[in-house]
């Protein structure tokens, strides 16, 4: 099963490699990993998407907690949460296809953020599945480049991941 693990970690050099190293050393897989500092500059927040049965996920969260640099973590899959991923797609846009791409981007609530005589860049956020659906909807031959941030997530309601 897919799990999104949100981690508060000391914003120190080497902290990221401890997390990545743990996954490779113990043979866990990482589907995606995003990391950035939080409003408290001494802390980073990491969102890690992984897959595994309950036993494996339990070990992953225990082993992550064991890392001295890890302050706190939650498995977002345990509760109701909101998940978003950012994507930018550079698409070849000809006379004939410009209108179609624009309306497709509209349907998916994407924005065209850059225009050249031959290309568009579409920016889109949403659950990963929506981004997948957009990619599937446009002609694969016209895609020049896709860049995705990997999902980040936040739990709903009063609870939050903080010190």
């Amino acid at each position, binding site marked *: 099963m897919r799990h999104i693990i949100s981690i508060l970690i000391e914003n120190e*050099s080497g902290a990221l*490699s*401890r997390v990545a*190293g743990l996954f490779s050393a113990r043979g866990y897989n990482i589907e995606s990993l995003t990391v950035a500092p939080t409003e408290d500059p001494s802390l980073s927040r990491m969102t890690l998407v992984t897959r595994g049965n309950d*036993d494996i996920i*339990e*070990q992953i969260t225990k082993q992550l907690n*064991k890392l001295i640099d*890890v302050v706190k973590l939650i498995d977002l899959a345990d509760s109701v949460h909101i998940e978003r991923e950012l994507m930018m797609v550079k698409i070849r846009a000809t006379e004939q296809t410009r209108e179609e791409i624009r309306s497709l981007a509209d349907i998916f609530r994407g924005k065209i953020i850059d225009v050249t005589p031959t290309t568009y860049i579409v920016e889109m956020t949403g659950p990963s599945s929506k981004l997948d659906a957009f990619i599937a909807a446009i002609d694969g031959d016209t895609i020049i480049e896709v860049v995705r941030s990997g999902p980040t997530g936040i739990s709903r309601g009063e609870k939050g991941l903080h010190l």
Partner: protein
Amino acid sequence: MELNGAQIVIQSLKDEGVEYIFGYPGGAVLHLYDALFQQEDVKHILVRHEQGATHAADGYARATGKPGVVLVTSGPGATNAITGIATAYMDSIPMVVISGQVPSPVIGSDAFQEVDMVGITRPCVKHNFLVKDVTKLAETIKKAFYVATTGRPGPVVVDIPKDITDPKIKVPYKYPKKVSIRSYNPAVTGHKGQIKKAVDLLLTAQKPIIYSGGGVILGEASKELVEFSQLLGFPVTNTLMGLGAYPATDKQFVGMLGMHGTYEANMAMHDSDVIIAIGARFDDRVTGKLDQFCPHAQIIHIDVDPASISKTVKVTVPIVGEVKPVLEQMMEMLRESKKKPSKKALESWWKQIEQWRAIKCMEYDRNSPLIKPQYVIEQLYEVTKGEAYITSDVGQHQMWAAQYYPFDKPRHWINSGGLGTMGFGLPAAIGVKLAFPESEVACVTGDGSIQMCIQELSTALQYNAPVKIINLNNSYLGMVRQWQEFTYESRYSHSYMDTIPDFVKLTEAYGHVGIRISKPEEVRPALEEAFAMKERTVFLDILTDRTENVYPMIEAGKAHNDMKLRVANGTSTDRELA
């Protein structure tokens, strides 16, 4: 007080109460060695190889309970220390390793003797630090000791670039009395509700067993384990790492469990209905085949490390906390409880265990014209009155030492259980002897293992650490040969050494005493002679029966009730005794 970085390191060690530091100098730590030279409180032991430094510090730590301290230079000094760091990591031994690093401005430029120590040690340390600011040095060292010695202990590396220890740069020094790390708060006491559940389960047990491990020794909970076991009257088995935590000569002790454990311990585990695992981690050498491990048992597990719980074996009642306070909490509840364990059930359980015990799985051929290694260990036990510190290397001799030297006290059996590091025994023995100069220290080893760190004989002489080396010499890498006999139709691929050195001459060359024996009747007198030479390191080269195997044995991937036993005439056979 203003000190330079090098002085800060040494002063911090002093303030931490460090007695010995095991190390080897080199370019990146020259400032540190200069500061060491100008004081006498912290005694430096110059080893002959950095692996020896880590093992000696490790032996010191295992025997005393205090953290072992190591100082090595950058590059090869640092990489040579890795085996010893990993050894300490696998057995949760508190250790602080200070490594020199190339100066900060050249880090990352492939400078002379540069290696990414923080990166290379990451998978085999509890934590590591790269010091980038001399004003953070004292605090970092304090943190290193704090992390190394609390929770589940382990090695911590502090990597210090050479410019940080520059004698010209002085900063105010104050060693913090306490540090706290917001992301590190190991549990101490156990959860009351969980303990209550555990107590209830223990009181309903019909065929209980206490399975205790190295965590009892690390947690200084030997006394509590004995009280707890005697309060309940349950049988006790120890892991290899736990030997000595419960007195081996006590009648409730059923011996070591696992691959080379006793018949009674393994059968009792297999048949039990309630297991309480105390500071043990269900290692594969203990569990054997996982899906057939203790098929009828409900399991209680006490461990300070939550990640150890339900890692390989699912448990019924997990309790996260230090062994000592948890056992105290548990005993309090047991004493208050009106219920007592069923006397009738226990009686019939013990009757069954005594039947298993009557098989005498540890018997061996006592009439052999050759020296039996088991006999050597038994005699070693008698000559040292069971009070020596025994270190060992890894292989058959290690198992025989574990099986035939009944340890009654914790911290007296010192071996590399988790990593299985050959070369551990001799330097570890030196570390133990420095800690306890008045006690007997013997290193039980083999002709393969001893050659991996034999250079430390020189260290033993320089620092007057007279240890006794009991070399069970069978001219084979015995455990490899045994596996080849059992599973590779006796194809002894590279497990035989054609050119073993003359250990007697070699020992003499190092300035010690060497004695070689080859007949059973020489064993006792030679041991007595060796231990009578209090001030000398003695190397007893004992030529043993080359074909001897370690029994009982649960071959890798088999279940506890599927043991290879020896029969009375000294040859082996498979017996299904389930």
